[in-house]
């Protein structure tokens, strides 16, 4: 005879006073163990870590991080090969820190990957209408943003871990030494990754759709490139007058914007951080780290505000 669902699924009973009436006698081990009420903060932390774990797992089960990692290794191989060839061809000239640029490129690619992931993390499921399902559970806006932030950092670290064996092999094969300070600098870029992920989450929370979020990211990136490229291009154009040339004004303007971006653009900050690490300039490293942490906190707060404002419904 078919059992009733209740005997099999072990539902709890409830009394008017809120206490659970036991159905263990009918259901044996199937009943939910009676647990003490959990505080909101403990539920929040539990949910945050669980969602972060799931997101990181989903990201690492996809093909994208491995494709990006393979690209990073390929670029590193080409750059190191060029360094070797340059050294061989130029005779006396040697390349200082041949692993600086490959590591910087790899870290930049990892940064780009986690930023794109963060930019889609909220906007895409919200657009599909599936984000609300998470909010049926004990999850709120800050938990969701926090979870995506943690998963972004974890994925970045896993990405660096993924790159470690092939790059170590490359260093061993070429007999080039990777300075320890540079490795510390790469590790510290996790703070910059936090800034990039927080910025991506803000875009994701604020944009009406996944496509719009990506477009905003592309627009922001283009703006940075235009400022950097524009400044470099203007430096190559000679001024016609020493005092009244508009070019000089533009140069000064772009230089100031360029300097300002150092404190806002994760990619510029990454460059500066690795450079400071190579120079063993710990004071500069500390400054950049502080700026990255401050920027991260500000973007995370903005992301929470934006998600509260826009909501979790499509």
């Amino acid at each position, binding site marked *: 005879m078919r059992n*009733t*669902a*209740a005997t*099999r*699924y*072990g*539902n*709890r*009973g*409830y*009394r*008017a006073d*809120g206490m*659970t*009436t036991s*159905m263990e006698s009918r*259901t044996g*081990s*199937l*009943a*939910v*163990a009676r*647990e003490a*009420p*959990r*505080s*909101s903060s*403990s*539920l*929040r932390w*539990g*949910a945050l870590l*669980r*969602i972060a774990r*799931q997101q990181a797992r*989903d990201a690492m*089960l996809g093909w994208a991080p491995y494709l990006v990692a393979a690209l990073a290794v390929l670029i590193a191989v080409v750059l190191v090969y060029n360094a070797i060839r340059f050294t061989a061809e130029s005779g006396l000239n040697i390349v200082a820190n041949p692993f600086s640029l490959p590591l910087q490129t790899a870290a930049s690619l990892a940064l780009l990957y986690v930023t794109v992931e963060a930019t889609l993390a909220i906007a*895409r*499921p919200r657009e*599909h*209408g*599936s*984000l*609300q*399902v*998470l*909010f*049926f*559970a*004990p*999850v*709120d806006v800050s*938990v969701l943003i926090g979870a995506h932030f943690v998963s972004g950092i974890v994925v970045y670290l896993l990405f660096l871990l993924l790159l470690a064996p092939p790059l170590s092999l490359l260093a061993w094969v070429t007999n080039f030494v990777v300075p320890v300070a540079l490795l510390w600098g790469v590790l510290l870029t996790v703070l910059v990754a936090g800034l990039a992920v927080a910025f991506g989450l803000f875009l994701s929370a604020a944009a009406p759709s996944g496509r719009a979020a990506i477009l905003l990211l592309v627009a922001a990136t283009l703006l940075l490139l235009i400022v950097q490229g524009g400044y470099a291009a203007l430096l190559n154009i000679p001024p016609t007058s020493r005092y009244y040339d508009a070019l000089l004004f533009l140069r000064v303007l772009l230089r100031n914007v360029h300097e300002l971006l150092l404190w806002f653009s994760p990619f510029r900050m990454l460059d500066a951080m690795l450079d400071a690490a190579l120079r063993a300039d710990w004071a500069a490293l500390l400054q950049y780290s502080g700026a990255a942490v401050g920027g991260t906190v500000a973007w995370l707060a903005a992301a929470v505000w934006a998600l509260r404002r826009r*909501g*979790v*419904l499509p």
Partner: protein
Amino acid sequence: MLQTEGLTKAYDTTVAVQDLNINVRAGEIYGFLGPNGAGKTTTIRLLLGLLQPTAGSVFLFGQRNTNDMVALKRRIGVVAEEPLSMTRMTGWEFIRFFADLNAVPQPEARMEALFQALDLWDARHALVGAYSRGMRQKLSLLRALVHGPELLILDEPVSGLDPYGILQVRQLVEEHRQNGGAVLISSHILSEIERSADRVGILHQGRLLVEDTVEGIRQRLGSARVLKLGLVMVPSTLPDALRQIHNVERVEAYDSQITVHIVGQNDIRPEIFRTVVAQGGVLLEMTGEEMSLEEAFVTITHQNVEQLAGATA
């Protein structure tokens, strides 16, 4: 367990929910009815804090839902019309994920029982993306039940299910009620609500038109009871004679059968019997038909539309 006071949600040009007052008690199944666009889903989103009300309040377990929604949500299970994005997970992983979010300790035994109760056990290791619509619907119910909530909020829970699936869901909901839990169920399948709900609220254009038991709603309407008379033959004067009886609204005669539409609550069957005999008829049978919830629903919403039309004319 669940109460709203003057709950209102207005957008720029429309009012989705207007001054809604409902009360769902422990051990009760509350049916929430309304045509498309009536405001049912908006109401459910307001209850869960996914939307902020323009006015009014929601009380869950006696607490205002703005107080500590995270802790309150743990006592609620929700099934909504939802697409599932976590299609890289298997069914088992999906439910385990939500069990963990709800901090259910050692949920495996309960999960196994629930998967078996809803006939998903064999498909537990298949990816959610490969589930059929009915299986996903069952998975949603499973998700809503895995943490043993006190209050179930079900939006179209049997949508996409086959008759056997509907039966399984009905059984689980009924058992939840029997265990003292409360259920708010919104469905277009009126027969489902009629069969399971203790009380029914009918929402139309954002307003709660009526809230009562199914029987109470029929009585409130007080009409549309129908008596069917089977006779050996219908005397020509009988239909007119029946029309003279108080509370008889309409009489239809066809062949050897007469259909009498009655308004009001009086039992006029003895009078009908006497009239048939007095007119020389021989009554073989008299059967009564109650108004179905579907008919009541149509009548109530239709009346309301007419009232609104009258008010604006």
